[in-house]
């Protein structure tokens, strides 16, 4: 889908230099944003969050090589992230020991993510060989089995995985290729950015290679792909291995940022998280998983401080995307943009604004209800007033509940029974005039 669009844009652009400008500017913008971000988000917490975003972006992009590009739904992608992280951690510890003993140079810290990537690739080859023989639901279930297997093993083999406590390393007793001191989190952030860029560009370019094309072909019509000479299993397997490689790089970066790795890194939860991130962002677009990853990490590190219910919001957001916007947030934005460009917004601007406003009102009501529920059910003293947006309310009285429910119902009712029909009518008349 997006490949088609990109091709067409490239075709429209014509001249060679213009194509490069058109293709390069998003990368330049992204690079500038990434480099300048720490000047705005400068606290220690923020820098850590930015680093996590970079890691998650690589991880989600690698995940989308499977789901979006090849049509393979995996529930266990954290395996390659986590195992990559563990091997990278062992490499880091080996380096720490070597540096502390003064016995050797160890592995330069900048290359440790690569160790993670190679480890991810290795495990990708092993597990990919058994799981990519099939696609669809069977593949999904095998991935589920493998993540269960690895997570359960991580507690059994304490020597390698360090048991429940996990493994520690540090980034002070290491050597750097460029003589950079990585004890400060800002330097690690820039290392993450550098690696994230290398990985993202590589994954972007991969989509345009024969393998990348055939991955799309196998996703859309495996039968036809076979009849133009391709072994669909081989295409899936290669995509899987490469995807595991990039997941491993993300795992290696994780080790450098966190300096600890536990069994969570190979587990179900992280596998689910990367799936959520990629899907919410939009699996049909290269940018989708990037936006999804940034959003998920942001919510995780900031919303969790503001609201206890953040996981609930997260789940509801996900279900909402699955039900109403299967193309994800970037997909919606792209659709609206195309619609806008082709003049589809003309005459419907008012109705569109109304729809958005109604939806926001419903969302406000929903948040009020959830927040009050949490306060009522989870706090030690429910009658203590709670701050809800701008007002203090006492949730043991009926009034705030009634108001919240009324806001929610009004918003939802207006959206479903008034705004949406209005938008449809407006679109019809606008379409009729054209």
């Amino acid at each position, binding site marked *: *889908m997006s*490949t*088609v669009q990109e*091709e*067409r844009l490239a*075709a429209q652009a014509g001249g060679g230099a213009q194509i490069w400008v058109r293709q390069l500017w998003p990368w330049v913008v992204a690079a500038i944003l990434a480099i300048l971000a720490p000047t705005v988000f400068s606290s220690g917490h923020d820098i850590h969050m930015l680093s996590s975003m970079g890691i998650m972006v690589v991880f989600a992009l690698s995940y989308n090589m499977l789901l979006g590009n090849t049509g393979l739904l995996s529930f266990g992608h954290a395996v390659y992230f986590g195992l990559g992280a563990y091997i990278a951690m062992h490499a880091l510890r080996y380096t720490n020991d070597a540096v502390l003993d003064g016995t050797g140079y160890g592995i330069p810290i900048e290359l440790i993510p690569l160790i993670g990537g190679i480890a991810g690739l290795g495990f990708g080859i092993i597990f990919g060989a058994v799981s990519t023989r099939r696609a669809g639901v069977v593949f999904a279930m095998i991935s589920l089995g493998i993540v269960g297997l690895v997570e359960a093993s991580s507690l059994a083999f304490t020597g390698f995985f360090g048991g429940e406590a996990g493994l520690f390393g540090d980034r002070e007793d290491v050597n750097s290729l460029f003589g950079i001191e990585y004890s400060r989190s800002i330097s690690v952030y820039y290392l993450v950015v550098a690696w994230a860029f290398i990985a993202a560009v590589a994954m972007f*370019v*991969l989509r*345009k*290679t*024969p*393998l*990348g*094309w*055939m991955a*799309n*072909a196998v996703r*859309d*019509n495996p*039968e*036809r*792909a*076979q*009849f*133009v*000479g*391709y*072994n*669909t299993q*081989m*295409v899936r397997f*290669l995509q899987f291995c*490469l995807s595991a490689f990039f997941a491993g790089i993300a795992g290696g970066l994780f080790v450098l940022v966190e300096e600890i790795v536990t069994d969570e890194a190979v587990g179900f939860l992280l596998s689910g998280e990367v799936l959520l991130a990629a899907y919410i962002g939009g699996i049909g677009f290269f940018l989708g998983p990037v936006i999804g990853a940034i959003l998920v990490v942001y919510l995780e590190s900031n919303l969790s401080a503001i609201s206890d219910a953040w996981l609930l919001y997260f789940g509801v957001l996900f279900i909402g995307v699955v039900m109403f916007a299967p193309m994800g947030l970037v997909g919606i934005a792209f659709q609206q943009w195309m619609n806008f460009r082709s003049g589809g917004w003309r005459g419907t601007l008012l109705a569109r604004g109304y729809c958005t406003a109604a939806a926001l009102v419903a969302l406000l009501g929903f948040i009020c209800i959830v927040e009050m529920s949490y306060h009522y059910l989870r706090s030690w003293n429910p009658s203590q007033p709670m701050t809800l947006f701008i007002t203090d309310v006492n949730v043991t009285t009926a009034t705030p509940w009634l108001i919240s429910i009324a806001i929610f119902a009004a918003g939802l009712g207006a959206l479903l029974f008034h705004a949406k029909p209005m938008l449809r009518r407006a679109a019809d008349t606008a379409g009729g005039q054209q």
Partner: protein
Amino acid sequence: MSTQNALSLSGVTKNFGKAEIIRGVDLDIRENERHVIIGPNGAGKSTLFNLISGRMDVTAGEIKLFGNSISGMSPHKVNRMGLSRSFQVTNLFPNMTTLQNLKCALLWDMKHRYAFWKLVNRQHAVTEKAEQLMEQLNLVHRRDVPAGLLTYAEQRALEIGTTIGSGAKVLLLDEPTAGMSRTEADEVVELIRQVTRDCTLVMVEHDLGVVFNLADRISVLVYGEVIACDTPEAVRANAAVQEAYLGTEVH
């Protein structure tokens, strides 16, 4: 015309559960001939194609392509040995454009295989050949339209294009004119005649006008058995064929 057999079937049988769909077919198709298989609906023509192209496994018997056995081989291997097929129901990559569909069909044959270290769009030879094909198919004006949005006839033409694109020496076409009017069908037949100049064609067809016009030889498949295999004139004159197939038509 050489007399070597491009494709030879001996005793090919296919059962689905208890039902025998193909009941021991023997068939030799010579190199560079245009061979058409006709027969009433449900005679097993599509099944026969599925067996030859590796989409289904034979229950018994053997299929040889240029003397090498291909029975039981997976479709991509059969394809790499030089056999390609089209489908009765259009079977393309719907989200890719016309050009992209053709490029996909060319990649393997032009030795790009599973490469992930080079860009498709930089392979100018591929693009060039795809453009040529597109011209042959008369689809140049639809270059950047996703295949799913082409008209029916255009999709059928593209289907034939993808089939010949993979550089096959033997082409199986399954009802390429299905669902078309006579005029459209004639155009497609002309296209087929052009693109199969130096390769072997095996085709299933319903339209007898097309068949007699195009075929070097005709096989008649009835109820899972080949009851006749000869030149168009001989088939037309064959009493058994008249009885079993043409006999059911209006006179």
